[in-house]
């Protein structure tokens, strides 16, 4: 199986879907001539032309609004928001329009829309460029929200998202575009509502998605050396939230750490913890430990930024504490 970088796996998914279905088109800032801020759309304008790869003005609300209209009219737009931080001005379109239209029209019209957008910090880009907001969207009925952590999942889930008849928030992460992994060629489709155990273990369960999946993996390798066996559940499907593998895992390990790059309060971990308390309370051996970004706007200062976002040390120390090994 070929090994691809995340950005190339996404590119492959877009190219294959555009070839397969003429109604698929892309729109966003700098995605055409410039090949995209993170080079995900590299070469696509050259290959498919300016009609199917639209360079737009810096106007997120108009990008999403245009995409919704096109989707209602029968096309399958894939809109790119340069980062998830910039989508705030388009929230009315995302929530009040995209998420609710099908319901409000009694199923009379679908909105087969994909919004691709990366979150994540760590590049000294300051508070207006560094946050993760997947929980904002995962809160809203009518949206599907996925956040993949491996190139193979990126391809398989993006292809499925494009074929889905509902608006899908396809959350990426700036710190993962260079992550490499084996990617199946051709028709590789993954469900949008299935989470998955990415690493088997016995002592502790770690829930993580997107870049935190990589962090969890690094932490698990270190913990292994200390004799702590961690099971990692990839929470790539955030809405609908597939809890089955988490519950099954917690019933085995009795201890859970959730890791997310966004703020902890009202976060993905909070939702996971609540579900676990509801469905597996009698299997817990310790309170669920939630790791998330410090409750501050992302610092610009390099040293502060480094301790504000979760890293493997946070996971390792928390795991030891949960097991009473410190």
């Amino acid at each position, binding site marked *: 199986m070929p*090994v691809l*970088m995340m950005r190339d796996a996404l590119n492959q998914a877009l190219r294959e879907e555009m070839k397969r279905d003429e109604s698929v088109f892309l729109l966003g800032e700098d995605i055409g001539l*410039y090949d995209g*801020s993170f*080079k995900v759309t590299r070469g696509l304008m050259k290959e498919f032309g300016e009609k199917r790869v639209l360079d737009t003005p810096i106007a997120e609300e108009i990008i999403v609004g245009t995409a919704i209209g096109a989707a209602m009219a029968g096309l399958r737009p894939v809109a790119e928001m340069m980062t998830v931080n910039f989508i705030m001005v388009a929230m009315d379109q995302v929530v009040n329009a995209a998420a609710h239209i099908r319901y409000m029209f009694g199923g009379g019209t679908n909105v087969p829309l994909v919004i691709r957008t990366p979150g994540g*910090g*760590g*590049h*000294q*880009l300051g508070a207006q460029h560094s946050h993760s907001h997947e929980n904002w969207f995962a809160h809203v009925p009518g949206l599907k929200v996925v956040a993949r*952590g*491996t190139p193979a999942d990126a391809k398989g889930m993006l292809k499925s998202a494009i074929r889905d008849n509902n608006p899908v928030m396809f959350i990426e992460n700036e*710190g993962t*575009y*260079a*992550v*490499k*992994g*084996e990617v199946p060629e051709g028709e590789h489709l993954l469900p949008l509502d299935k989470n998955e155990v*990415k*690493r088997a273990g016995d002592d502790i369960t770690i829930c993580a998605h997107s*870049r935190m999946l*990589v962090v969890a*993996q*690094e932490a*698990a*390798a270190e913990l292994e050396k200390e004799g702590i066996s961690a099971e990692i559940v990839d929470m790539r499907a955030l809405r609908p939230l597939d809890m089955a593998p988490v519950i099954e895992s917690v019933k085995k390990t*009795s201890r859970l750490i959730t890791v997310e790059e966004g703020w*902890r309060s009202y976060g993905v971990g909070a939702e996971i913890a609540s579900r676990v308390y509801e469905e597996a*309370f*009698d*299997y*817990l*051996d*310790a*309170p669920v*430990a*939630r*790791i*998330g*970004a*410090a409750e501050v706007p992302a610092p610009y200062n*390099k040293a502060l*930024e*480094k*301790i*504000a*976002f*979760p*890293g*493997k*040390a*946070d*996971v*390792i*120390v*928390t795991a030891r*504490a*949960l097991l*009473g090994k410190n």
Partner: protein
Amino acid sequence: MANVQMPRLSDSMETGKILRWLKKEGEEVKKGEPLVEIESDKANIEVEAYASGKLSKIVVPEGESAPIGAVIAEIGGPPASASGAERATRAPETVRGDGGAAPRSEKPSAPEEQPPAAEPEQKAKPVRAEAPKAQATKPEAHVAQAEKAMAGTAQAAADSGGEQYPHGGPDDRMEAGAAAQAALRAIRGPNGRDDATAGERQRVSPVARRLAEEHGVDLRQVQGTGPGGRITKEDVEAAAQHAQRPTAAPTPSLPQRERERVARPSGEVEVVELSKLQTTVAMRLAQSKFSAPHFYVTSEIAMDDAVHLRQMFNEAVDKSEAISINDLIIKAVALALTKFPEVNASWADGRIERKRDVNIGIAVGLPDRLIVPVLRNADQRPLKEIASESKQLIERARTNKASGQDYLGNTFTISNLGMYDVEQFTAIINPPDSAILAVGSIIDKPVVKDGQVLPGKRMRVTMSVDHRVIYGVTAAQFLQDVKRLLQSPMALVL
């Protein structure tokens, strides 16, 4: 001297192309002056010099590309006799495009001869390396750590241009940062691990509670080893395993392993299994002694009149209706209790329950067990009835014919070892009572009366009191009343 490195000019940049050197080799450069024009994946940008001096060497010529962090030029002369450590302190002078790209220079400088751990695509080989490179971690090491399911994911660190590690280098942080603090507080409690204070509700994890129920493990007998002293799944499993051993007692509440530990050193210890009743007694007494704060009040009572009264009483009635000194004590205590409702009370989970009925428990010692039949409404019964019922109760207890009713409802207990030549002793409160009266023998001794030494019959009683329910003065006053009734015993027969 200072190295000029390829700066990171955009978030997604991996390599940069030198478009134009704005200074020639050998030319003087001032800090802040435009030095080189570089093309990133986003824009063409003029980069300033971060150090002053002579542009001694251009490493990457115009038209060529270099990865982020690679040395593209050198400013200043060759290093003086600076040691490695001194050079390390000068590392900040290294030219940087922005802070995000520069490798962290926490380690001392690499020796001059050692080339930097080059980026895979690096074309221009720098002659010297002053600052260590962030890519010191070999890709192979990461691959070895990675699980099959994520094969290759971590490898990206090596050739990603640093994107895998958003903070500009591998995550070598060893201490938990702000991200984990709230989770750690939740696990350890606000004051770290020692916040399980005495008297706090026993901490048991949900799974431990469930397993304890499934295995019939008594959690009160389990020592918690988790954070904050919480009883964990492992603690219960260990306790259950001990309980399942073939030689284990029928009930897991008595610590089998404790007995084994004691028995092992000598090898001559006879292990005595307890009956269910004995187990219950042991548990209740331990619970009482360790949860109720006991204090003790002793009084010596002149029993001359009581002994005389008993003699006269027994001479006047049939032998089957004879009374004992204990019956007199029961009656005296019962009458005193009606005046001291605060003594006829129980500690009930943070509150005090005062009992309307006065029911006296009578501790009966038998060779293999201790039982406490209860004489109900002792305050309302004539002495004769107290005598006959206590006789029946004790007889039923001795012959194992007592009903469950016989043991219910005690509000105060009397333990009398007078017949065993005991001067005085202290007893453990019999739950749910708040006090117990330990009665010693009646002893003939010289007593001083009106300045004269005379023979007297004296009995010492000691009341054990639960201080949560009864305070010292109340206990003393109650005991005074008991003493008054026994020293002027006519009230007992009225």
